[in-house]
């Protein structure tokens, strides 16, 4: 017989608390590495420099200030939507660490989710410092987003992280069949880079490309939350509905591959 709901919720809360706190302690051990990761995510700033130099925004209805705010927002969104589950899972699979986790009565995915959220918490102060440095160097770009925009942007960023995590975790299932499945993620990084809005706001893209992009999940991973944070007009409901639709498509595929993968699992390295 299943325990009552309140008891199950209490159990889940306790697991979440200890997983997050232990993973946060673990991530703090690697704080120097995380600073380097945060620094390596400055692509939006480089793109800002490039687009500003050619005054790309001007001709297409984006002022230099809007462009600066967009890329700063894209940097922040990117920092909290970075997903690396495939690389960790692949390593755990090859080294045999997956086996003891699979033998515990906790779905494996929550360990990785906790690791990502803890890593984001570790990253937070460095991101704040970089944002502060940006405004110090470019004070004209400073703005106070409204509380509603901040909350909505946080929600959109969280949804973007969930979608990106689900997408990569679905691809990760290939690790059950291939020892080097992470090559797939590297391949997928190209459309992500181009269509997510990391290299340029999608508003600057030719209409055909932009329309195509919004049929993929990528714009919802950077462009949409970044534009919300930057105070741009965004079709919020439509965007959240698109994210939900992608999640609804990916989730059953993920579950199916997970079940099939477990049947195929050979417990390597153990």
């Amino acid at each position, binding site marked *: 017989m299943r325990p009552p709901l309140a008891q199950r919720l209490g*159990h889940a809360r*306790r*697991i979440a*608390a*200890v*997983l997050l706190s*232990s993973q946060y*302690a*673990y991530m703090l*051990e*690697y704080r120097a590495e995380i600073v380097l990761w945060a620094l390596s995510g400055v692509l939006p700033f480089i793109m800002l420099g490039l687009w500003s130099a050619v005054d790309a925004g001007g001709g297409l209805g984006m002022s230099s200030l809007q462009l600066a705010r967009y890329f700063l927002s894209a940097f922040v969104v990117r920092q909290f939507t970075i997903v690396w589950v495939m690389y960790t899972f692949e390593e755990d699979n090859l*080294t*045999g*660490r997956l*086996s*003891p*986790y*699979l*033998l*515990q*009565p*906790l779905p494996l995915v929550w360990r990785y989710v906790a690791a990502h959220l803890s890593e984001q918490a570790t990253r937070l102060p460095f991101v704040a410092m970089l944002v502060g440095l940006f405004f110090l160097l470019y004070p004209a770009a400073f703005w106070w987003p409204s509380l509603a925009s901040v909350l909505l942007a946080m929600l959109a960023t969280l949804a973007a992280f969930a979608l990106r995590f689900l997408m990569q975790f679905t691809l990760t299932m290939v690790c059950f069949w291939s020892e080097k499945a992470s090559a797939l993620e590297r391949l997928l990084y190209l459309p992500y880079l181009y269509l997510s809005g990391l290299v340029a706001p999608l508003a600057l893209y030719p209409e055909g490309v932009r329309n195509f992009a919004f049929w993929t999940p990528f714009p919802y991973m950077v462009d949409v939350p970044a534009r919300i944070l930057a105070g741009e007009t965004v079709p919020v409901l439509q965007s959240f509905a698109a994210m939900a639709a992608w999640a609804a498509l990916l989730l059953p595929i993920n579950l199916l591959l997970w079940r099939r993968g*477990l*049947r195929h*699992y*050979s*417990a390597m390295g*153990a």
Partner: protein
Amino acid sequence: MAIVRAQGLGKTYRVADKQPGLAGTLRHFVNRRERLIAAVQDVSFAIEPGEFVGFLGANGAGKTTTLKMLTGLIHPTSGTVEVAGCVPHRRQAAFLGQITLVMGQKQQLIWDLPPLDSLRVNAAVYGIPPAESRRRIDELADMLELGDELRRPVRKLSLGQRMKAELLAALLHRPAVLFLDEPTLGLDVNAQARVRSFLADYNRRFGATVLLTSHYMADITALCPRVLLIHEGRLFYDGSLETLTQRLAPCREVRLELHAPLGADVFASYGDVEAIEGREVRLLIPRERLTEQVGRLLADLAVVDLSVSDPPIEDIIGRLFHRGALA
């Protein structure tokens, strides 16, 4: 009623079949060939609650594959398996809460944090209340002679300390069935003895069922009244260690220390000469003639010291695997 039951268990792996060299690599790239390897074939046995069973076999014999099937990590290709009333590969929470598998020393502890952090996680995952988990940690730490080590990062622990901490983490939820794959591998003699005595103590105190694989025969002889022997994926012996020794070693070893060295021909009528080193002689004498021959040796020769023992079990099993005379 058996707590572990395997019936006709089998596992076949598909492995790549590649020839060496560049030509072999290119051929393999355009025309990938695979072949089937039967890692385990038609293995059947049952283990009663509280039993301590040794699982013996050479490298690649199928021990670890069998353990993986018993824990549900891999699906059997054929046959059925039931552990604690559950089908392992269904991985129901009720099953996972009753078993544990220890394989090597780098498993579930978080490498850069003290073991206590990993133990907190395990306690939450298995739903052990905080006060109860503290009590269990103290109890198991006491049995394992672990103290401050639980507050040091795992990476700073010695191999022996790490193994003991892994055992603690694996047993915190007090599993009814323990699958232990080489738990003393790489440990020094003292650490091996401590782990061994802990396992015996745990089995006695909690009535846990244990299936243990080990390359150290001292583990098997000290802990396992019953052994399963597997060779090339097939089970060919299931019974007491004592019977196995008697069946496979019909002779006992007699060690003599003499007043003065003697030639090998002198001992021909007593038994088979294993070795002669100066005044020390080792003979193998059939069990049924042991009393008579020892009496003759003492009467006929100037013996300073005499002892009788079974040949080391590793020698017996080593010879057995080498001979391939198994059935």
